[in-house]
Protein backbone atom coordinates (compact mmCIF):
# COMPACT_ATOMS: atom_id res chain seq x y z
CA UNK A 1 0.00 0.00 0.00
CA UNK A 2 1.33 3.42 -1.00
CA UNK A 3 1.10 6.49 1.18
CA UNK A 4 -0.23 8.42 -1.82
CA UNK A 5 -1.29 7.78 -5.39
CA UNK A 6 -0.99 10.84 -7.58
CA UNK A 7 -3.11 10.95 -10.72
CA UNK A 8 -1.57 13.34 -13.22
CA UNK A 9 2.03 13.91 -14.33
CA UNK A 10 1.89 17.67 -14.83
CA UNK A 11 3.53 20.36 -12.71
CA UNK A 12 1.10 19.94 -9.78
CA UNK A 13 1.31 16.15 -9.62
CA UNK A 14 5.07 15.90 -10.05
CA UNK A 15 5.79 18.75 -7.60
CA UNK A 16 3.63 17.00 -5.01
CA UNK A 17 5.44 13.72 -5.72
CA UNK A 18 8.82 15.37 -5.15
CA UNK A 19 7.77 16.98 -1.85
CA UNK A 20 6.17 13.75 -0.63
CA UNK A 21 9.26 11.78 -1.62
CA UNK A 22 11.49 14.18 0.30
CA UNK A 23 9.28 13.60 3.34
CA UNK A 24 9.96 9.86 2.97
CA UNK A 25 6.45 9.05 1.79
CA UNK A 26 5.89 6.11 -0.46
CA UNK A 27 4.33 7.67 -3.54
CA UNK A 28 3.44 6.64 -7.09
CA UNK A 29 2.46 8.98 -9.92
CA UNK A 30 0.22 7.80 -12.76
CA UNK A 31 -0.86 9.52 -15.94
CA UNK A 32 -1.85 8.53 -19.43
CA UNK A 33 0.30 11.15 -21.12
CA UNK A 34 1.90 14.55 -20.65
CA UNK A 35 -1.44 16.27 -20.26
CA UNK A 36 -2.54 19.54 -21.80
CA UNK A 37 0.77 21.29 -21.13
CA UNK A 38 2.88 18.60 -22.75
CA UNK A 39 0.61 17.66 -25.62
CA UNK A 40 0.00 21.06 -27.10
CA UNK A 41 2.48 23.29 -28.81
CA UNK A 42 2.81 25.62 -25.84
CA UNK A 43 5.99 27.60 -25.54
CA UNK A 44 6.50 28.73 -21.96
CA UNK A 45 8.06 32.17 -21.72
CA UNK A 46 7.07 33.23 -18.23
CA UNK A 47 8.27 30.48 -15.92
CA UNK A 48 10.99 31.45 -13.50
CA UNK A 49 14.50 30.31 -14.39
CA UNK A 50 13.74 29.07 -17.89
CA UNK A 51 14.49 30.55 -21.27
CA UNK A 52 11.47 30.00 -23.56
CA UNK A 53 10.87 26.27 -23.37
CA UNK A 54 8.20 24.03 -24.84
CA UNK A 55 5.57 22.67 -22.47
CA UNK A 56 6.55 19.16 -23.50
CA UNK A 57 10.21 19.75 -22.65
CA UNK A 58 9.31 21.23 -19.28
CA UNK A 59 7.08 18.25 -18.44
CA UNK A 60 9.84 15.86 -19.49
CA UNK A 61 12.31 17.65 -17.23
CA UNK A 62 9.87 17.41 -14.32
CA UNK A 63 9.32 13.70 -14.84
CA UNK A 64 13.09 13.17 -15.22
CA UNK A 65 13.67 15.00 -11.96
CA UNK A 66 11.14 12.78 -10.17
CA UNK A 67 12.63 9.62 -11.69
CA UNK A 68 16.08 10.58 -10.42
CA UNK A 69 14.59 10.55 -6.92
CA UNK A 70 13.37 7.00 -7.64
CA UNK A 71 9.72 8.04 -7.66
CA UNK A 72 7.77 5.46 -9.66
CA UNK A 73 6.12 7.12 -12.67
CA UNK A 74 3.69 5.00 -14.67
CA UNK A 75 2.25 5.90 -18.05
CA UNK A 76 -1.11 4.17 -17.64
CA UNK A 77 -4.73 5.21 -18.11
CA UNK A 78 -6.80 5.35 -14.96
CA UNK A 79 -10.06 3.49 -15.50
CA UNK A 80 -11.64 3.87 -12.08
CA UNK A 81 -11.03 5.33 -8.65
CA UNK A 82 -12.74 3.89 -5.61
CA UNK A 83 -12.39 4.10 -1.85
CA UNK A 84 -13.56 2.50 1.36
CA UNK A 85 -12.82 3.16 5.02
CA UNK A 86 -9.27 1.84 4.73
CA UNK A 87 -7.87 2.81 1.35
CA UNK A 88 -8.12 4.27 -2.10
CA UNK A 89 -8.02 1.89 -5.04
CA UNK A 90 -7.00 3.04 -8.50
CA UNK A 91 -7.55 0.69 -11.41
CA UNK A 92 -5.58 1.40 -14.58
CA UNK A 93 -5.55 -0.30 -17.97
CA UNK A 94 -2.62 -2.38 -16.68
CA UNK A 95 -2.91 -2.93 -12.92
CA UNK A 96 -4.41 -1.88 -9.59
CA UNK A 97 -2.87 0.44 -6.97
CA UNK A 98 -3.82 0.99 -3.35
CA UNK A 99 -2.94 3.90 -1.09
CA UNK A 100 -3.85 5.70 2.09
CA UNK A 101 -4.39 8.98 0.25
CA UNK A 102 -5.03 10.13 -3.29
CA UNK A 103 -4.13 13.32 -5.10
CA UNK A 104 -6.08 14.35 -8.19
CA UNK A 105 -3.85 16.50 -10.38
CA UNK A 106 -5.41 15.66 -13.71
CA UNK A 107 -5.83 19.13 -15.07
CA UNK A 108 -9.16 20.39 -16.32
CA UNK A 109 -11.65 18.27 -18.16
CA UNK A 110 -11.92 18.78 -21.85
CA UNK A 111 -15.11 18.42 -23.78
CA UNK A 112 -14.73 15.11 -25.59
CA UNK A 113 -17.83 15.07 -27.76
CA UNK A 114 -18.67 17.89 -30.07
CA UNK A 115 -22.34 17.09 -30.63
CA UNK A 116 -25.19 19.56 -30.98
CA UNK A 117 -27.42 19.80 -27.85
CA UNK A 118 -24.90 17.85 -25.77
CA UNK A 119 -25.07 20.26 -22.82
CA UNK A 120 -28.82 20.68 -23.11
CA UNK A 121 -29.42 16.98 -22.48
CA UNK A 122 -26.64 16.36 -19.97
CA UNK A 123 -28.48 14.97 -16.96
CA UNK A 124 -31.61 14.62 -19.10
CA UNK A 125 -30.64 11.42 -20.78
CA UNK A 126 -26.91 11.97 -21.24
CA UNK A 127 -24.82 10.60 -18.39
CA UNK A 128 -21.13 10.43 -17.45
CA UNK A 129 -21.76 8.19 -14.48
CA UNK A 130 -23.32 4.79 -15.03
CA UNK A 131 -23.41 4.10 -11.29
CA UNK A 132 -25.24 7.37 -10.59
CA UNK A 133 -27.72 7.26 -13.42
CA UNK A 134 -28.01 3.65 -14.56
CA UNK A 135 -31.13 3.04 -12.45
CA UNK A 136 -33.23 5.41 -14.57
CA UNK A 137 -32.63 3.31 -17.67
CA UNK A 138 -33.70 -0.13 -16.45
CA UNK A 139 -34.66 -2.16 -19.54
CA UNK A 140 -34.54 0.96 -21.70
CA UNK A 141 -32.72 1.64 -24.98
CA UNK A 142 -29.32 3.12 -24.31
CA UNK A 143 -26.33 4.21 -26.33
CA UNK A 144 -22.88 3.84 -24.87
CA UNK A 145 -20.32 6.05 -26.57
CA UNK A 146 -16.82 4.62 -26.52
CA UNK A 147 -14.41 2.21 -28.13
CA UNK A 148 -11.81 0.94 -25.66
CA UNK A 149 -11.18 -0.47 -22.15
CA UNK A 150 -13.15 2.39 -20.62
CA UNK A 151 -16.18 1.34 -22.68
CA UNK A 152 -15.65 -2.27 -21.51
CA UNK A 153 -15.54 -1.10 -17.89
CA UNK A 154 -18.84 0.79 -18.18
CA UNK A 155 -20.56 -2.02 -20.12
CA UNK A 156 -19.87 -4.42 -17.24
CA UNK A 157 -22.10 -2.27 -15.06
CA UNK A 158 -24.68 -1.17 -17.63
CA UNK A 159 -25.47 -4.64 -18.93
CA UNK A 160 -27.00 -5.44 -15.53
CA UNK A 161 -29.42 -2.57 -16.11
CA UNK A 162 -30.55 -3.24 -19.65
CA UNK A 163 -29.80 -5.55 -22.55
CA UNK A 164 -30.85 -2.95 -25.13
CA UNK A 165 -27.39 -1.45 -25.63
CA UNK A 166 -25.96 0.06 -28.80
CA UNK A 167 -22.33 1.11 -28.95
CA UNK A 168 -21.41 4.29 -30.79
CA UNK A 169 -17.70 4.74 -31.47
CA UNK A 170 -18.10 8.22 -33.00
CA UNK A 171 -15.78 7.44 -35.86
CA UNK A 172 -13.19 5.41 -33.94
CA UNK A 173 -12.18 1.79 -34.43
CA UNK A 174 -13.40 -0.51 -31.72
CA UNK A 175 -10.66 -1.98 -29.54
CA UNK A 176 -12.69 -4.47 -27.52
CA UNK A 177 -14.76 -7.55 -28.33
CA UNK A 178 -18.47 -7.12 -27.79
CA UNK A 179 -21.76 -8.81 -28.66
CA UNK A 180 -23.67 -5.51 -28.79
CA UNK A 181 -24.34 -3.73 -32.07
CA UNK A 182 -21.62 -1.23 -32.92
CA UNK A 183 -22.29 1.94 -34.92
CA UNK A 184 -19.19 3.63 -36.27
CA UNK A 185 -20.99 6.79 -37.45
CA UNK A 186 -20.10 10.23 -36.24
CA UNK A 187 -22.59 11.73 -33.80
CA UNK A 188 -24.12 14.94 -35.06
CA UNK A 189 -27.03 15.98 -32.85
CA UNK A 190 -28.97 14.89 -29.80
CA UNK A 191 -32.75 15.01 -30.23
CA UNK A 192 -35.33 15.28 -27.48
CA UNK A 193 -38.10 17.24 -25.83
CA UNK A 194 -37.80 17.46 -22.03
CA UNK A 195 -35.44 14.52 -22.18
CA UNK A 196 -33.29 12.81 -24.79
CA UNK A 197 -35.24 10.79 -27.38
CA UNK A 198 -32.59 9.96 -29.96
CA UNK A 199 -29.31 10.56 -31.71
CA UNK A 200 -28.74 11.79 -35.24
CA UNK A 201 -25.55 10.47 -36.81
CA UNK A 202 -24.09 11.35 -40.20
CA UNK A 203 -26.14 8.53 -41.78
CA UNK A 204 -29.09 7.64 -39.55
CA UNK A 205 -31.43 8.54 -36.72
CA UNK A 206 -31.50 6.26 -33.67
CA UNK A 207 -34.38 6.31 -31.19
CA UNK A 208 -32.98 6.02 -27.69
CA UNK A 209 -33.82 6.70 -24.05
CA UNK A 210 -30.35 7.39 -22.78
CA UNK A 211 -26.71 7.89 -23.68
CA UNK A 212 -23.69 7.07 -21.52
CA UNK A 213 -20.36 8.64 -22.34
CA UNK A 214 -17.34 6.35 -21.91
CA UNK A 215 -15.05 7.74 -24.54
CA UNK A 216 -11.22 7.84 -24.48
CA UNK A 217 -10.39 7.67 -20.77
CA UNK A 218 -12.38 8.94 -17.79
CA UNK A 219 -11.80 12.66 -17.27
CA UNK A 220 -11.56 14.44 -13.97
CA UNK A 221 -15.22 15.38 -14.51
CA UNK A 222 -16.21 11.73 -14.55
CA UNK A 223 -14.13 10.96 -11.46
CA UNK A 224 -15.65 13.83 -9.53
CA UNK A 225 -19.17 12.73 -10.46
CA UNK A 226 -18.63 9.08 -9.60
CA UNK A 227 -16.82 9.78 -6.34
CA UNK A 228 -19.15 12.56 -5.21
CA UNK A 229 -16.51 15.27 -5.03
CA UNK A 230 -17.97 18.73 -4.48
CA UNK A 231 -17.29 21.11 -7.36
CA UNK A 232 -18.17 24.71 -8.00
CA UNK A 233 -18.31 25.96 -11.61
CA UNK A 234 -16.28 22.97 -12.84
CA UNK A 235 -13.56 23.42 -10.24
CA UNK A 236 -13.06 20.90 -7.45
CA UNK A 237 -13.52 22.55 -4.06
CA UNK A 238 -10.67 22.00 -1.57
CA UNK A 239 -10.04 23.22 1.97
CA UNK A 240 -6.90 24.99 3.24
CA UNK A 241 -5.07 21.64 3.25
CA UNK A 242 -6.09 20.95 -0.37
CA UNK A 243 -8.41 18.17 0.77
CA UNK A 244 -11.76 17.68 -0.98
CA UNK A 245 -14.98 16.82 0.84
CA UNK A 246 -13.79 13.19 0.80
CA UNK A 247 -11.39 12.41 3.62
CA UNK A 248 -7.92 11.55 2.33
CA UNK A 249 -8.69 12.69 -1.22
CA UNK A 250 -6.75 15.79 -2.25
CA UNK A 251 -6.68 17.89 -5.42
CA UNK A 252 -4.19 20.33 -6.90
CA UNK A 253 -3.45 22.26 -10.07
CA UNK A 254 -5.87 23.38 -12.80
CA UNK A 255 -8.58 21.03 -11.53
CA UNK A 256 -9.15 23.27 -8.48
CA UNK A 257 -9.45 26.40 -10.60
CA UNK A 258 -7.73 29.73 -10.09
CA UNK A 259 -4.98 30.87 -12.43
CA UNK A 260 -4.21 28.21 -15.03
CA UNK A 261 -0.49 28.78 -14.71
CA UNK A 262 2.49 26.49 -14.16
CA UNK A 263 3.75 28.48 -11.17
CA UNK A 264 0.36 28.16 -9.50
CA UNK A 265 0.22 24.42 -10.25
CA UNK A 266 3.69 23.94 -8.74
CA UNK A 267 2.59 25.89 -5.66
CA UNK A 268 -0.54 23.72 -5.39
CA UNK A 269 1.59 20.60 -5.68
CA UNK A 270 3.80 21.73 -2.82
CA UNK A 271 0.88 22.81 -0.61
CA UNK A 272 -1.13 19.66 -1.25
CA UNK A 273 1.93 17.56 -0.38
CA UNK A 274 2.10 19.27 3.00
CA UNK A 275 -1.63 18.71 3.43
CA UNK A 276 -1.14 15.02 2.68
CA UNK A 277 1.91 14.72 4.98
CA UNK A 278 -0.09 16.34 7.76
CA UNK A 279 -3.05 14.08 7.15
CA UNK A 280 -0.88 10.95 7.19
CA UNK A 281 0.67 12.07 10.48
CA UNK A 282 -2.73 12.49 12.14
CA UNK A 283 -4.27 9.40 10.58
CA UNK A 284 -1.81 6.71 11.53
CA UNK A 285 -4.46 4.00 11.60
CA UNK A 286 -7.28 3.24 9.18
CA UNK A 287 -8.79 6.30 7.56
CA UNK A 288 -12.06 6.27 9.46
Amino acid sequence: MFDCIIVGLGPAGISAAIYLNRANKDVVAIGKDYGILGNGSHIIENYYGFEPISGKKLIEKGIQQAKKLNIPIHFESVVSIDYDAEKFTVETDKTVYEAKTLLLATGRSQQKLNVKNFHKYTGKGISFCSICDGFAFRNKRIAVVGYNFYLAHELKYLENITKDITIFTNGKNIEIETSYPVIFDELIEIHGNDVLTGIQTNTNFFELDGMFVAIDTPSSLEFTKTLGIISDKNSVVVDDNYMTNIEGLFAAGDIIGGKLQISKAVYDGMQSAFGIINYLRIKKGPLK
Partner: protein
Amino acid sequence: MIIHADKSNFDTIVLKSELPVLVDFWAPWCRPCQTVLPVLEAISRDLDGIAKVVKVNADENPTLADRYKIMSIPTFIVFKNGEITNQTIGIHTKDNLKKLLEL
Protein backbone atom coordinates in the same frame (compact mmCIF):
# COMPACT_ATOMS: atom_id res chain seq x y z
CA MET B 1 -33.28 18.08 10.66
CA ILE B 2 -33.62 16.24 7.38
CA ILE B 3 -37.09 14.83 6.74
CA HIS B 4 -37.57 11.57 4.84
CA ALA B 5 -40.57 11.53 2.54
CA ASP B 6 -42.13 8.75 0.45
CA LYS B 7 -45.03 8.55 -1.97
CA SER B 8 -47.60 8.35 0.86
CA ASN B 9 -46.62 11.67 2.47
CA PHE B 10 -44.75 13.57 -0.28
CA ASP B 11 -47.73 15.81 -1.08
CA THR B 12 -48.23 16.75 2.56
CA ILE B 13 -44.57 17.25 3.41
CA VAL B 14 -43.42 18.90 0.18
CA LEU B 15 -46.23 20.20 -2.01
CA LYS B 16 -48.36 21.61 0.81
CA SER B 17 -45.43 22.98 2.79
CA GLU B 18 -45.60 26.62 3.77
CA LEU B 19 -41.82 26.79 3.79
CA PRO B 20 -39.66 26.37 0.66
CA VAL B 21 -38.46 22.79 0.33
CA LEU B 22 -35.16 21.44 -1.01
CA VAL B 23 -35.80 17.84 -2.08
CA ASP B 24 -32.91 15.43 -2.60
CA PHE B 25 -33.75 12.43 -4.77
CA TRP B 26 -31.16 9.87 -3.72
CA ALA B 27 -30.49 6.15 -3.55
CA PRO B 28 -28.58 4.03 -1.06
CA TRP B 29 -26.12 2.69 -3.66
CA CYS B 30 -25.22 6.15 -4.91
CA ARG B 31 -21.86 7.27 -3.54
CA PRO B 32 -22.26 10.98 -4.35
CA CYS B 33 -25.52 10.88 -2.36
CA GLN B 34 -23.54 9.79 0.69
CA THR B 35 -20.83 12.40 0.28
CA VAL B 36 -23.38 15.21 -0.05
CA LEU B 37 -25.17 14.19 3.15
CA PRO B 38 -23.04 16.36 5.50
CA VAL B 39 -23.79 19.33 3.21
CA LEU B 40 -27.54 18.68 3.46
CA GLU B 41 -27.33 18.29 7.22
CA ALA B 42 -25.55 21.63 7.47
CA ILE B 43 -28.18 23.32 5.29
CA SER B 44 -31.04 21.91 7.33
CA ARG B 45 -29.37 23.25 10.50
CA ASP B 46 -28.60 26.66 8.98
CA LEU B 47 -32.10 27.08 7.59
CA ASP B 48 -34.06 25.63 10.50
CA GLY B 49 -37.49 27.31 10.49
CA ILE B 50 -36.76 28.99 7.13
CA ALA B 51 -36.75 26.07 4.69
CA LYS B 52 -37.16 22.31 4.77
CA VAL B 53 -34.66 19.73 3.57
CA VAL B 54 -36.35 16.52 2.40
CA LYS B 55 -34.86 13.29 1.11
CA VAL B 56 -36.71 10.92 -1.21
CA ASN B 57 -35.32 7.46 -1.89
CA ALA B 58 -35.77 7.20 -5.67
CA ASP B 59 -35.30 3.41 -5.61
CA GLU B 60 -38.18 2.86 -3.20
CA ASN B 61 -40.38 5.54 -4.75
CA PRO B 62 -40.26 5.00 -8.52
CA THR B 63 -43.60 6.77 -9.00
CA LEU B 64 -42.16 9.96 -7.52
CA ALA B 65 -38.94 9.53 -9.49
CA ASP B 66 -41.00 9.13 -12.67
CA ARG B 67 -43.28 12.05 -11.86
CA TYR B 68 -40.29 14.39 -11.60
CA LYS B 69 -38.36 12.71 -14.46
CA ILE B 70 -35.37 11.86 -12.28
CA MET B 71 -32.63 10.58 -14.61
CA SER B 72 -29.59 11.31 -12.52
CA ILE B 73 -28.87 10.79 -8.87
CA PRO B 74 -28.65 12.91 -6.83
CA THR B 75 -31.18 15.39 -8.23
CA PHE B 76 -32.12 18.42 -6.15
CA ILE B 77 -35.47 20.14 -6.71
CA VAL B 78 -36.74 23.24 -4.93
CA PHE B 79 -40.50 23.46 -4.36
CA LYS B 80 -42.31 26.64 -3.31
CA ASN B 81 -46.05 26.45 -2.78
CA GLY B 82 -46.10 23.12 -4.57
CA GLU B 83 -44.34 24.47 -7.66
CA ILE B 84 -40.84 23.64 -8.89
CA THR B 85 -38.71 26.78 -8.86
CA ASN B 86 -35.24 25.32 -9.39
CA GLN B 87 -33.57 22.03 -10.16
CA THR B 88 -30.04 20.69 -10.44
CA ILE B 89 -28.13 17.42 -10.53
CA GLY B 90 -24.87 16.27 -8.98
CA ILE B 91 -22.84 17.45 -6.05
CA HIS B 92 -22.66 21.09 -5.07
CA THR B 93 -21.26 23.32 -2.37
CA LYS B 94 -23.45 24.29 0.54
CA ASP B 95 -23.66 27.87 -0.71
CA ASN B 96 -24.72 26.87 -4.20
CA LEU B 97 -27.42 24.53 -2.91
CA LYS B 98 -28.67 27.28 -0.62
CA LYS B 99 -28.78 29.68 -3.59
CA LEU B 100 -31.13 27.27 -5.35
CA LEU B 101 -33.69 28.06 -2.66
CA GLU B 102 -33.56 31.80 -3.55
CA LEU B 103 -34.48 32.83 -0.04
